């Protein structure tokens, strides 16, 4: 089997007495959208921080194209083509939208003029073309999320880590963002996304990993994962799968494939 | 090698000096723990308190220990006012601005004292300043032993206030989770000001304890405050027991190194230690949250 673009191997992270990540392993294939889901506090953002070089793992390794990148600092990872967005948006508040994106464009462009030009193009791509001269601090929640993505996109990455890029958006805004994420993938960018909004995960992701209490408990195509009783129980509590599908359904592996409820699975984005 | 008698005396003296360092550090760590600001004006305020105590004696004949009773509430009010009406409003909540405002205050206070009283060094001449008490293993200055006792007393009172009174609980709430405290109806600007006032009040007590044996000039507070900063960073920003333990520890270290290295190098030693502590502090103290 070909080496996946990104491989996480047995990563653990302990903060004093608290184990945030407990032996998580996953693989991200190139040019695919992979989702990382799990209940709050499962350790998803910690794992992202480790992959993107902001935290060093207590144990385990991260590989990019087969090369060990564990502990490589974020700015070097950006140069390798790995970009990330932040769950709580981190704009350059005192700068305009245009200047914000230009910082990303500067990764591969020396000249200010080139960077600004490239930034304008990226802005148009994500729908911020009319807001170039606005101060970044004045954007709406949806606009700020687009800016996060635009900045990361301007670095021309091979892999983007999207951390809850849909969080805090209303359904209309989510509906507008989803095509943007898909457009990224269509351009060949590999995406690893943390998401709580299940409808987006179902429609975007080709492969899903489920992280519960720091461990990967399930992986697979979205419908299979979402119908997995263990996943249901992680979100809805012990015994939930049995309540939803009856004892037989829970034993047989529940969900749409096992005779449970049809459609988008039990959680339906309800636990945001 | 030095004889054990001298060593023991040095250690004990160090503990006594350390107690006053701890009191200064206590004020600093309280302010940091609750307001999350590094109070650059702490040194200047200590100097102001020492001048106040000095003139309380000069003009009103007040013994420093008596003056403490008057000055402590006075400086509490001063600290309250500074935070409530100057630092809080001027900074608009921005960390960088708080830095500058407390620096501005420090510069103003210190130089106002310089302008008013010139740079001369003054000392108080009290009859009991040189009395010693015989503890069997060593002779210790009465003044220092009293200071030690008073510091322990102040620490106890502070602990009681923080654990038992409503205001104390509010202070702890704000320190832990400001937004939550605010949402629970706690008047955060008021609590900030009370905390700053408590920190400044500690300085008033410390000043009165220092006055019998220490000199006064417009720069005297700075030396103490650098030591206090070192203690606070070592003991943990915002940790009251840390400030106490750290103070005693630093006092002993200073006493012993003074013994082995002499006076003049001692001053540099404090700054160097301060720099080293900041550069290599344990990773738990990361971040700058001014």
């Amino acid at each position, binding site marked *: 089997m070909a080496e996946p673009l990104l491989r996480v191997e047995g990563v653990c992270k302990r903060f004093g007495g608290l184990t945030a990540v407990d032996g998580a392993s996953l693989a991200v294939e190139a040019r695919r959208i992979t989702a990382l889901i799990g209940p709050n506090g499962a350790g998803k953002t910690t794992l992202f921080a480790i992959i993107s070089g902001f935290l060093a793992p207590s144990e385990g390794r991260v590989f990019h194209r087969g090369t060990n990148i564990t502990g490589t600092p974020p*700015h070097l990872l950006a140069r390798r083509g790995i970009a990330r967005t932040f769950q709580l948006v981190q704009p350059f508040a005192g700068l305009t939208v245009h200047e914000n994106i230009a910082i990303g464009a500067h990764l591969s462009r020396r000249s200010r003029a080139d960077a600004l030009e490239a930034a304008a193009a990226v802005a148009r791509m994500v729908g911020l073309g009319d807001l170039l001269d606005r101060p970044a601090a004045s954007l709406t929640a949806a606009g700020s999320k687009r800016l996060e993505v635009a900045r990361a996109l301007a670095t021309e990455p091979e892999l983007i880590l999207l951390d809850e890029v849909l969080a805090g958006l209303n359904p209309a805004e989510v509906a507008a963002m989803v095509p943007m994420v898909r457009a990224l993938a269509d351009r060949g960018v590999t995406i690893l996304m943390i998401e709580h909004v299940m409808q987006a995960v179902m429609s975007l992701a080709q492969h899903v990993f489920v992280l519960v209490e720091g461990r990967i408990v399930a992986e697979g195509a979205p419908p299979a994962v979402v119908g997995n009783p263990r996943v249901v129980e992680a979100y809805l509590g012990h015994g939930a799968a049995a309540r939803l599908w009856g004892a037989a359904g829970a034993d047989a592996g529940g969900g749409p494939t096992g005779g449970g409820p049809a459609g988008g699975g039990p959680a339906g984005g309800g636990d945001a | 090698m030095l004889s054990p008698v001298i060593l023991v005396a040095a250690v004990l003296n160090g503990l006594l000096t350390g107690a006053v360092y701890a009191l200064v550090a206590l004020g600093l760590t309280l302010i940091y723990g609750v307001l999350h600001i590094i109070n650059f004006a702490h040194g200047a305020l200590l100097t102001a308190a020492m001048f106040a105590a000095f003139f309380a004696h000069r003009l009103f004949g007040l013994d420093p220990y008596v003056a403490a009773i008057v000055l402590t509430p006075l400086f509490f009010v001063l600290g309250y006012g500074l935070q409530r009406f100057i630092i809080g409003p001027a900074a608009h909540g921005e960390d*960088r601005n708080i830095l500058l405002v407390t620096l501005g*205050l420090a510069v103003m206070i210190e130089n106002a004292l310089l*302008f008013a009283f010139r740079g001369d060094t003054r000392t108080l001449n009290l009859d009991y300043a040189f009395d010693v008490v015989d503890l069997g293993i060593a002779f210790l200055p009465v003044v220092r032993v009293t200071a030690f006792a008073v510091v322990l007393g102040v620490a106890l009172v502070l602990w009681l206030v923080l654990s038992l009174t409503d205001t104390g609980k509010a202070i702890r709430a704000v320190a832990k989770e400001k937004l939550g405290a605010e949402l629970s109806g706690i008047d955060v600007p008021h609590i900030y000001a009370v905390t700053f006032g408590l920190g400044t009040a500690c300085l008033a007590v410390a000043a009165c304890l220092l006055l019998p044996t220490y000199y006064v000039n417009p720069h005297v507070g700075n030396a103490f405050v650098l030591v206090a900063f070192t203690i606070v960073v070592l003991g943990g920003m915002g940790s009251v027991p840390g400030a106490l333990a750290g103070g005693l520890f630093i006092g002993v270290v200073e006493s012993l190194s003074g013994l082995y290295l002499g006076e003049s190098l001692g001053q540099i030693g404090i700054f160097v230690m301060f720099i080293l502590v900041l*550069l290599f502090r344990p990773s738990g103290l990361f971040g*700058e949250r001014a």
Partner: protein
Amino acid sequence: MKIAPILIVIAALATVPLLTASNVVLNFLILALMIALVGQGWNVLGGYGGQYSFGHAAFFGTGAYVTAIVQMRYGVDAWTGFALGIAGGALTGAAIGALTFRSGLKGSYFALVTLAFAEVLRILASVAPITGAGVGILIALDLRPQAFQFQSRAPFYWILLGLVGVSLVIVRLIEQTRFGAWLVAVRENEDAARALGVDATRIKLVAITVSAAMTAAGGAFYVQYFLFIDSGIAYGPWISVEALLAPIVGGIGTVFGPLLGALVVRTLGELTKLGTGDAPGLDLVIYGGLLILVVAFAPRGLAGVLSDLRGRVARLRSRMPEQAHG
């Protein structure tokens, strides 16, 4: 590259010695320009880089002492000494930067540690024989251009003006290059900058080195002009305060901020002295108060106030044609 405004300002200032022979005016302007140079140094690190140093005296004093020491103790010529002073300052900046930025010190901690470094240097300079200990160093009077000493103030003024002009151009350059964009990104949000490929530690290191070099140039000039330096002047809080006050008052993070601010601060200083004689301390009291007032009411300094006014005028103007059609 938009350096026309800089050239115009420098040219205008250059005419002053031709218009007046008053030593008072020239002396005042020389001090103001010196603070402008020192403040521009602080501005690179603090205004553009967002790292507030409370100990810029460390660079000023090193520039001054190195220049004085190599001339008086090692017989180096004054101009080379000047260059060495700048180099010494730059090295000090790089050293302090390497220590503090590698440890991840930011914000208040960084301010504290720079304060401590300046104090350590002050104490060392006050006791070390090489810096003349408590007495300081006197540069021997040698009124020849080759010795960087002049009979009249005008040549000093023009040389300093040249240095200030260079510092203005350097900052303008920074504003227009990738380095400047990265530096500002680090100031606004260091983590986000890192995630976008910015080597924040290296950027800050370069910034502090440039900053220190500029400030050291001010210090080296100071000792060449006054021919005397001691630990209190070199490494004292007065210069650390003026170094940050000028850019903050004039407009932090702008090209002309430090120059504007230096003129304001020095004017205030002189007025204070006129009013109360030579009692030490009052001018710094005023400076402290000014700092608080600016932070509270005009955080973007004079430059900010001026651009706000310009904005208001422009908005008023754009409304007038509509009223005519009313």
